[in-house]
């Protein structure tokens, strides 16, 4: 019990970060599963974080309300920018969404009276409990799991493979893309709310390009062919730098090497059911 307590006091923040990172990975997975490389998730996370932090700090609203608002604000933003941007494809979409993220960051930097500008917001009440994160993750996973097994999930996948053909199957391509984008925004916002109320502080530079790339890396590294991949990717990428502390000055080099090795040897992501089947199949055949 003592050991557990001790573990918790050392690693609680890490564990909660695992949860929020898993949420972020899932949020971008949603758009990827629909064939869109949309990289606005860091910005959506930021919008969620700022919205909720301002609400709890200056207006003292209850946490559930802050969560709802922190999810609604990015979802609404996604809806508004989705209309023109989702026509773009591939890296062009990625760039437009990154550009949008930059604009958000600069607006936050300049809206000093509300956001604290470059200094960020300090003294956010640490309301987030472990079970908030756990519950959020479980609910999101359940929802996405259901979605994936439904006609909506199939439509996402069809759109990912061939938009034209999907349209000719009676799928409203634009509406489905919008749905993925908006839901992704809401989930990223949720992660932002939980993160803001866990770390006392948020600043505009946390939600920029690097975070966007981090989120994408977690998901792709984990594997995008299911829900397990993003969660796994989020967990591994969060833990890895901690686990490598022994390497001292060169630990991030080791971190990079491991990243490359994973990608090289597991190019479809860490969680790749097809490969598992293949391994399993081969073993079965050998036996």
């Amino acid at each position, binding site marked *: 019990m003592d050991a557990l307590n001790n573990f918790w*006091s*050392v*690693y609680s923040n890490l564990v909660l970060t695992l949860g929020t990172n898993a949420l972020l990975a899932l949020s971008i997975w949603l758009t990827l599963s629909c064939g869109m490389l949309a990289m606005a998730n860091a910005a959506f996370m930021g919008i969620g974080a700022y919205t909720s932090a301002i609400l709890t700090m200056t207006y003292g609203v209850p946490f559930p309300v802050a969560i709802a608002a922190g999810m609604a604000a990015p979802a609404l933003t996604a809806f508004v920018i989705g209309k023109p941007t989702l026509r773009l494809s591939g890296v062009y979409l990625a760039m437009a969404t990154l550009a949008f993220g930059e604009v958000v960051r600069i607006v936050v930097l300049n809206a000093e009276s509300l956001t604290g500008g*470059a200094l*960020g917001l*300090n003294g956010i009440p*640490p309301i987030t409990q472990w079970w908030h994160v756990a519950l959020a993750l479980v609910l999101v996973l359940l929802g996405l799991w259901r979605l994936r097994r439904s006609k909506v999930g199939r439509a996402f996948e069809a759109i990912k493979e061939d938009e034209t053909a999907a349209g000719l199957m009676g799928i409203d391509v634009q509406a489905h893309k919008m749905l993925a984008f908006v839901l992704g925004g809401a989930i990223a916002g949720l992660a932002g709310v939980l993160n803001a109320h866990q*770390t006392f502080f948020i*600043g505009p530079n946390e939600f920029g390009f690097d975070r966007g790339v981090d989120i994408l890396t977690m998901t792709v590294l984990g594997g995008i062919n299911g829900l397990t991949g993003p969660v796994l990717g989020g967990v591994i990428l969060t833990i890895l730098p901690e686990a490598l502390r022994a390497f001292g*000055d060169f630990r991030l080099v080791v971190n990079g090497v491991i990243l490359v090795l994973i990608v090289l040897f597991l190019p479809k992501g860490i969680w790749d059911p097809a490969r598992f089947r293949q391994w399993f199949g081969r073993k079965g055949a050998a036996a």
Partner: protein
Amino acid sequence: ADLKIGVAEALSGGAAQYGVAIRNGFELAASEINAAGGINGNKIELVVADEQGKKEEAINVFKKLIFQDQVLMVFGPTLSNSAQAADPIAQAAKTVAFGTSNTADGITSIGDYVFRNSVTEADVLPETIKTAVKNAGIKKVAVLYGNDDVFTKSGYDNFKKALDDLKIPVTTTETFAKGDVDFKAQLTKIKASGADAIVLSALLAEGAPIMVQARQLGLNVPIIGGNGMNSVKVFELAKGNSDNLYVGSPWSASNATPENTKFIKAYNEKYKTAPDQFAAQAYDAMYIAAQALKGVKISGNLTADRAAVRDALPNAKWTGATGAFQFRRATDKAGKPAGYDAQQTPIVSVTKGAEFVIAK
């Protein structure tokens, strides 16, 4: 028994430039203290951890140092943003968090376990401006600062306040972002505005090229810099264009007190490079802490010992590389007493021929 002290600094990522110098400062001071017999016979053992300049990492590292490594107190973290996130952890665990490079407002209002010896620019900048105005006959200035970085932005806020207080007109205010390489657009505008000086809140990575490009554009006015520019590296990075830069800080490379001379020499010997203000402040911080620890009876009960350190620290006084030092109580948002800021006298110097010359 050894006195375990945590050092949480950014040793990788963009803030590593500062974090590494800071760690060096601590290690130099600790080895000197240990070589001289330690504190009441106890050796200092530094537990160094990399917080990458990220807030989550800073929290993780603080937790690891406080709960797992069971340190007596923690130095760091490097960036103010990280301090905003990590210091509350120390506060809640009733462990001293001692920052040596956090200059942003409000850090010490987190609680009474939060200390820093980094001089906030609010105290320094008015002095710098006054001296520069007096020396160079400045009437109106242009302001240039990095607006996406806490350090340079809070520096700017203080500059602005000081300029307002001194009633010095500002011709134009321009910004840049971290990582920019070209500042000519801003400098051209400043030149056209006819300012007598540039007030510059920047770190060296941008500050040095700004000086060079300003001179290239024929903008030869004095530059008034903040803490970030206070480094002899400016002579190397802005070689040939480094004159006429005013900086104010308790620490100056050309301050020839015996303490400072000894520090610079030792640092140069150990790390083969010149120290900067970050290193100097870390070095002094270690001595300040040592000073306080001398008066603490280590009982072996960690909770009690930590509280004892906290109680001893506010009274520590020390004259080191940065001159005479003592703490000053800060208040929190509600005006109640909270942590402790530094109380020091700044020295203003101006660059001339690859040297800082103290300006009166």
